[in-house]
């Protein structure tokens, strides 16, 4: 079996509940209030790795205030999908739209609004914790909504600001990577396994961050095997490889 079609899931067509409206005015809403048009729309995406077809015919319509949990077996293509959605990797077929604008690899329309966490946290060991956060924030071009020290406090790294990042444990690195999400007001979050290496408090932190983000009208696409304790009104699940199980 070379090709396998993932289960096609679409968001429930119900109208957004009142708590989906943005609570913080500093964050742009993903779609206009009242509009039901999906912010991130993927049609018939296909992904190749070498000569092997990883997935094709993948459709996803994600709207403001939603947390999309991507689940699937190892090798199903979760990371590939997130890279395609982030505009890091090209899709072998299909189209991708962000706020109605067609996007491809390196499209600026998406990168303005995106905060991305890959399976590597992107932390430079030779820089301090605060320098790492400052560098990544300035690179992103997004407007910080708080001071960097406050973002470090929010992720529990307040006392490590001056420490060299190479001294951090894997979980602390992950927390530092998450500090960017708190610091910047990006409407679209794409996170690849954000719970990796985190302790129980860290997981609860991610869940709280995702909930706040969705309440403000942000959109998050998250790949994780762990159940996410976020309000069911915001949570959507996308399951890979349902045909495999059959």
């Amino acid at each position: 079996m070379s090709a396998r079609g993932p289960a096609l899931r679409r968001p429930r067509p119900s109208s957004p509940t009142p708590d989906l409206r943005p609570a913080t005015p500093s964050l742009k809403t993903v779609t206009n209030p009242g509009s039901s048009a999906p912010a991130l729309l993927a049609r018939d995406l296909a992904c190749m790795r070498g000569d092997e077809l990883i997935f094709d015919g993948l459709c996803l319509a994600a709207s403001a205030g939603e947390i999309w949990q991507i689940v699937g077996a190892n090798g199903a293509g979760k990371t590939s999908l997130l890279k395609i959605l982030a505009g890091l990797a090209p899709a072998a077929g299909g189209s991708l739209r962000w706020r109605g604008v067609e996007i491809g690899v390196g499209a600026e329309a998406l990168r303005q609004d995106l905060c991305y966490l890959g399976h590597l946290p992107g932390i430079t060991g030779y820089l301090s914790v605060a320098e790492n956060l400052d560098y990544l924030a300035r690179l992103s071009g997004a407007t910080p909504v708080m001071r960097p020290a406050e973002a470090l406090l929010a992720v529990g790294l307040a006392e490590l600001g001056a420490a060299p990042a190479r001294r951090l444990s894997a979980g602390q690195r992950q927390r530092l990577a998450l500090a960017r999400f708190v610091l910047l007001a990006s409407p679209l979050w794409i996170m690849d396994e954000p719970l990796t290496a985190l302790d129980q408090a860290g997981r609860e932190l991610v869940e709280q961050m995702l909930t706040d983000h969705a309440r403000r009208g942000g959109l998050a696409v998250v790949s994780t095997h762990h159940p996410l304790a976020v309000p069911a009104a915001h949570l959507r699940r996308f399951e890979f490889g349902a045909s495999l199980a059959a």
Partner: protein
Amino acid sequence: MSGGTALTAARAVLGRDLLRAWRRRGEIVQPLVFFTITVYLFPLAIGPAHDTLRVLLPSIVWVAVLLSMTLTLPDVFAADHADGSLDHLALSPHPLALLVLMKAGAHWLTGAAPLLVLGGLLCAVFGLETYTLRALLLGLLLGSPVLSLIGTLASALTVGLRGGTLLLALLTLPMYIPVLIFGTSAARNAALGIPVQAEMYLLAGLSVLALTLTPWATAAALRARLG
């Protein structure tokens, strides 16, 4: 956009690479030591014939500069790829060509500029005439940006490849040949008392050409490698 301009991001990339180089200055010194040893091997191999050495010295310095700069090229993107920060460079909304130009600039400042100073000192120690020394140093100053820019492009092309370090040297050294030819020919002509303007103009031209073309090629290569 209040979050920052492309210039802010460019300064951040340059500042971060320079800071990182400063923090690991113990490793940055290694290519300088390699350079010095390479240059000092030739007097030992050629023997004490002072005139032969003086004739060959500019060429020896040029070759040693090429080899030493090849050694530092993996630093440009490989470490960033290994820790994941290269993804964030590619995901920045600012022009990637500008950001990789800053990476090449940081490579020149940390990997080439110290070699120029050291090369000048070594030549002075070996008693190179002032006019030849000035032609050699001006040639290195005009030619070394090409080496950093082409090296950055090759570094982007090989990022994430296993055995990339040797492949990087195999890719870059042939592309360094034009710079080497004009640079050494300038020093040779200077030793004979012939004007060297033509070579200097050509080296400057190559620099401008590399400066205008390679950032875009490097950005495209990075996007292709990350995909």
